[in-house]
C-alpha cells in the first residue's frame, strides 16, 4: 500500500540561543493510505507544531513533507492553500469556526473557497451523521463545545480530503465518532 504521508527530517525551531525551543527536531515518519495514526506525547512536546507543519499551516526550517505524492513545501503560499483545502482536512484544537457563518456555511466554506459546487444532499447527510441536522442555521456562539467539534469535523470531511489531521485534546475525543 502506498504512503499518503511522508515526512523527511523535519525541523522547526523557535527563538535563538539559550531561549531556543526545538519544537520539531529532525522528525521523520511515514503513514500508509487508509491507516489511522495517533501521535501522543506530553504537553509541550511539539505535537501541534508537527501537525501544523504536516498540514501546511506553517513552513519548516528544513525538511520535506509529501502528501499524496506532492512535496507540499515546493508550492508557493496560494498554491499551498489550494492544495490544503482540496487534499487536507484539518480539525483544529479550538475548532476555528468562523463566528459570522452558521453551521451550514462553516461546513461548506472549504468547498466555496475552492469554487466547487455544493451538493446539498451530501451536506445534509453529513449533518445527519454528526447529529446537527436541526442546527444548520445556528451560529457558532449558540453551539456547545461538542457541537462545535462536530461542525469542525464535518467541515474537514466535506471536501473528501486525502488525509484528515485532527489536533485534539485526549479528553475531548468521543470514541463513537473517532
Amino acid at each position, binding site marked *: 500500500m502506498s504512503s499518503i504521508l511522508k515526512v523527511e527530517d523535519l525541523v522547526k525551531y523557535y527563538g535563538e540561543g539559550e531561549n531556543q525551543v526545538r519544537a520539531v527536531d529532525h522528525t521523520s515518519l511515514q503513514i500508509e493510505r487508509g491507516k489511522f495514526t495517533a501521535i501522543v506525547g506530553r504537553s509541550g512536546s511539539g505535537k501541534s507544531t508537527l501537525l501544523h507543519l504536516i498540514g501546511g499551516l506553517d513552513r519548516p526550517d528544513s525538511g520535506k513533507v509529501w502528501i499524496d505524492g506532492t512535496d507540499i513545501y515546493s508550492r508557493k503560499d496560494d498554491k499551498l492553500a489550494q492544495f490544503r*483545502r482540496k487534499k487536507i482536512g484539518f480539525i483544529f484544537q479550538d475548532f476555528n469556526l468562523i463566528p459570522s457563518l452558521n453551521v451550514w456555511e462553516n461546513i461548506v466554506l472549504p468547498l466555496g*473557497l475552492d469554487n466547487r459546487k455544493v451538493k446539498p444532499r451530501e451536506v445534509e447527510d453529513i449533518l445527519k451523521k454528526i447529529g446537527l441536522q436541526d442546527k444548520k442555521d445556528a451560529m457558532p456562539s449558540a453551539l456547545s463545545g461538542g457541537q462545535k467539534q462536530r461542525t469542525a469535523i464535518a467541515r474537514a470531511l466535506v471536501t473528501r480530503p486525502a488525509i484528515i489531521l485532527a489536533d485534539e485534546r485526549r479528553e475531548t475525543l468521543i470514541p463513537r465518532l473517532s
Partner: protein
Amino acid sequence: MKMTTRVAYCNMRHYKSKNILIGIAIILTTLLLFVIPSIGKDMVEVNFAVINKIYPTWHALYRNVDESTVMKLAAHHDVKTYGLRSDAGGYMNLEDATVSMMYMDRTGMELYKVKLKEGGQLPQKENDIVVSKGILEALGQNGKIGDTITVPYQILKDDGLDYTKEKDFRICGFLADNESSKEQKQYTSLVSEAFLKAEIPVEQVKYRFLLQVNGQKGNTTADYTETIQNIARQFGISEDDMNINKEYLAANYVDPATIPVIVGIMLIVVLAGIITIYSVYYVSMNQRVREFGKLKAIGATKRQLRQIVLREGMGVALFAIPIGLLIGTVAVKVVLLQFVEHAKDSNVLITEAYKVVAKGEVQLYYWWIYLLAIAVTLCTVYLSLMKLCVWRRRYQK
C-alpha cells in the same frame, strides 16, 4: 453567490455594531468632504452674483480726464468699451436735499447699470433734464415727461462753486429713487453735455472715463489690472486718479492669489478625511486578525482574504457614502440660508445675498464636488483596506 462575497456579507451582519460605527465615520467624512468645498464655492458664487447685481460693470475709471485725452483713450487698442461721466454739472441749491447734476452718456449708463423709467430719454438739449420723484418733491414741484420745471443750481468750477442761477428745464426722463437716497435725501439728476459745455469753459470740463479693457480667455484679474495700469501710465493718469473695480474683476475673472488658498484648504480637508477613515479601519481590522488567520488556515488564499476584507469594507462604504451626501446636500442649503439670514439686515450686500440664495438664483450644488467626495472617500477606504491586508500578511509571517 461567491463564497468570499458570502463571507463578507455575513461579516457585515455579524459585526453590525462595529460596521455601524465605521459607517458613521464614513458618513461624517463624506459630509466634511462635501460640505466644506460646497459652502466655500457657494459663498464665493453668491458673493459674485451679488457683486454682478449691485456693482457697476466697468473695469476701471480714470478721473479728471480732459476732452482731448478722452479722444485718445477711446482709440486705444486695449480699450474694449468706454463711457463718460462728468460731475461738473453742479448742484441744485435746495434747503433740505442734495441733488447733483451729472452728465453721463449712454454707455456710461449701461456700465453703471442705471436705467431710466419707461418712456424717458437721456438729455440731449441744453435744457433737458432727467429727475426723480424725490427731486421734484425737494424742489416742491410736480411734473411729467415734457413738463418744464425751474431749477436753482450752482456750477462747480475750478475756483469753487459759482453763484446760484435759475433755469427752466424740460423733463425728458425719470430715474427711480432708492431707499438710501430717500433716507439721506441725496439725489442725482442727469443733464446734457450741451448744458455742461454751456456752463463751464471747455478747458475746465473734466470727465470720468469708464472703461472695460480687452481680454483673452484665461486672463486673470492680475492681467486686467496690469492692462488698466499700463493705459493709465501711457496717458499720465496717476494712481490717485484711477479706481479699479476689483470686486467686479474678482467676481468675473480668476484671481490667481486665491488658487493656492483653495488648493491648501482642499488638501487639509482631504487629508483629514483620509486619516479618519484609515484610523477607523485600522482599529477595526486589527481586532479581527485572528479571524483572518482562521480563514487562511481553512484554505483561503491571500487573494480571497483580500476580497473578503475589501468587499466587507467597501460594502459599508457604499451604504454610508450616499447617506453622507444626502445629509450634506440638505446641510449646505440650510447653513447658507442661516448664515445670510442671520446678517441679512446688516448691509446691502448681505441682504442681496439672502435674496439670491432664498430665490435659488445661484447654483448651490456642483457635480464635481459630489464626485470629489465620493472618489476621495472610496479611494481612502480601498487604500486603507489594501494597506491593512499587506500589514496583516507581514504580521502573520
